[in-house]
């Protein structure tokens, strides 16, 4: 009986497996294969065999390594800010507030907009001479600051815009976690005479810990792959101040047309992300089994 069910399941899975194989596994395997050659889109064929040459030259490339550093700084800061603010907002939405649904809709609006539209809108808002932001700031004596063109503020501005857009994702996950928490531990805590702060510290936080980890790790993975916002806002500039690794790899592939090099860099990025995604899936599985 079980064997029959398994067979049936397998038959139903075949189309999806074929689809996944064709769209994910094959391209991944092919890009791994070409990362050992010197494919240049201008020319036909694989070019010379390079062994690990593309990997070695990527690790020696100061701009590639610099872009990884920028990506780590960007990802860590956005995730920390989005987590802290996102949790605060989720806690607020978990309370009984009048008109909560209206505020909730407003908070999740940025998540519905594509990053390209967000980038273009903020680019206009932040225009140093014609933008609304500087016009408003001029009333409190701050005039004509170049938010996206100044080394000191470019990355910070991109981080702000990313937080503005992505915080709703964090709010959604954390709020779902809060809503699904069991009531019994709170009742037990209140019988034991725990204050609101104590039940938050000793009940909410420990129960939310797995949700925290999943939210942080999933967001870390997506932050690490940020590309579109940088493309629209700064093109990696000024200089290399906002050049993140996905944007750098994209340039190698489609401007320099060095496909093999870009493939090798992508696998280095994958090596960085695999441990993070492994931990995230382990936690998710433990949680589901628990």
């Amino acid at each position, binding site marked *: 009986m079980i064997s029959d069910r398994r067979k049936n399941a397998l038959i139903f899975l075949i189309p999806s497996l074929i689809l996944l194989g064709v769209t994910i596994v094959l391209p991944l395997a092919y890009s791994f294969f070409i990362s050992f050659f010197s494919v240049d889109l201008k020319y036909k064929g694989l070019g010379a065999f390079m062994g690990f040459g593309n990997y070695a030259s990527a690790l020696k490339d100061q701009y590639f390594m610099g872009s990884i550093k920028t990506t780590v700084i960007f990802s860590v800061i956005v995730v920390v800010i989005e987590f802290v603010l996102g949790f605060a907002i989720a806690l607020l939405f978990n309370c009984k507030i009048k008109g909560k649904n209206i505020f909730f809709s407003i908070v999740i609006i940025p998540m519905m907009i594509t990053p390209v539209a967000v980038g273009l809108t903020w680019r206009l808002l932040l225009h140093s001479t014609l933008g609304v932001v500087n016009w408003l700031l001029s009333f409190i004596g701050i005039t004509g600051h170049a938010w996206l063109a100044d080394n000191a503020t470019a990355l910070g501005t991109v981080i702000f815009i990313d937080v503005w857009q992505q915080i709703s994702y964090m709010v959604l996950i954390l709020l779902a976690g809060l809503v699904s928490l069991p009531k019994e531990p709170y009742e037990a805590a209140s019988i034991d005479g725990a204050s609101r702060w104590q039940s938050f510290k000793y009940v909410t936080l420990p129960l939310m810990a797995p949700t925290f980890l999943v939210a942080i790790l999933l967001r870390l993975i997506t932050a690490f792959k940020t590309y579109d916002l940088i493309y629209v806002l700064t093109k*990696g500039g000024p200089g290399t101040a906002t050049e993140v690794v996905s944007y750098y790899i994209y340039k190698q592939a489609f401007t*320099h047309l060095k496909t093999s090099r870009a493939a090798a860099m992508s696998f280095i990025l994958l090596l960085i992300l695999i441990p993070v995604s492994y931990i995230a899936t382990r936690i998710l599985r433990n949680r589901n089994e628990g």
Partner: protein
Amino acid sequence: MKKLLVIVLALLMVFSLAACGGQQSGGQQQATETKVLKILMEDLNATDQVLARLDDFEAATGIKVEAEVINYATMHDKLVTQLTASESDYDVLVVDCYWVGEFAEAGWMEPLDPYIEASGFDTSVYLPTMMEMVGELNGVTYELPFYNYMMALIYRPDVFADEGLHKAYVAKYGVDFTMPTETLAEYVQVADFTTAYFKEQGVEMYGAVHQAGRGDPIAIEFCNYMYSNGGDFYDADGNITVNNPEVVEALELYMDAVANASPAGAAGFNLDDAYAVYSAGKAASFVTYNTFMPVLDDPEQSQVVGLSEIANIPGGHSLNGGWGWAIPHNAKDKDASWEFINYIESFDVAKLRAEGGSAPTRSDIFSDPDIMALYPYYDTVLDIMKTAVMLPIMPDSTPLMEIFGRELSEAVSGNKTAQEALDQVALEMKDLKR
């Protein structure tokens, strides 16, 4: 029975997927039968003038043309993915002058000579500089020139005529100035001074505005400074000269102008940002494409109608530029593609486009009395073109501009000195195929 049902359902899923794919290719086949040509074009006036002629072309030939109009920044990368495929979605290409070496090296453009010969198209009507840039390469005609975008100095004589400005300038430097100035150094000095003067007067007017954002904007704009100061990427023997003293000096002048003449934020501006400042009447000069003159005189797109004049870059060497029409090597119906190019570049249609403000490439359009009456400054454009310099045509010109744009941005944002930035460009240029 149950097993049979499961197998039938699974097969149905597989076939429905296959059917989806089949429908798509069926759609493409139908498109070829009704002759629909697709083109990827940049969102600007020259494209609008082509779009305005598509109905006439369809009426004359029965061929429908669908143009996908997008922002310049994504065009190259979008084209590359199409050109490396076995069949292209696009049937006609518009090619920027600095992609020519790359596209020709890769074999992505169909040689046009057989089509030109068969249809008797006279290519001698084009300005020689345009044919050299976006026409022939190594004796093969790959393109017909579409429009020119040679750069120039666009400026506001009314602002630079300000009496107080001249008095203050003489008081500081002991000599007066005339705009356009003779040299690049003098231009930067006047632009810086103008910004400072109007700031003191409490007026928001900048001596110049720059498109110094990383990538193509800064690379293209700075070429005008580099050429006008006597510099270039390579010398006649092919040696790299991009970090020679005259280029370093040009970059120092450019950095000075971006920091002191332009509005804050110019180091992140692209063409649209800089144009917005100039067309809002907040800047007195702008090194930009000559094709913007008609746009600046259009009340719907500008607040400075009739106030601008065009001149050569101080120092005398602007960046020459242009776009060409080509047929992709993997086009489905090359004869239909040529029919469109042949039509859109014919004298009558080219004249209609030019009347709408598309910058000409044919000498017979430049000398046409109707066109000259509409755009009297074309005399100046032709003069500037005599000394304009084009980017090197080489297989790796796109990476060259990307590296150049990155390092120039490093310099204007204060991360590197002019010499350090240009030394890095020279170092990376050694790996580029010329």
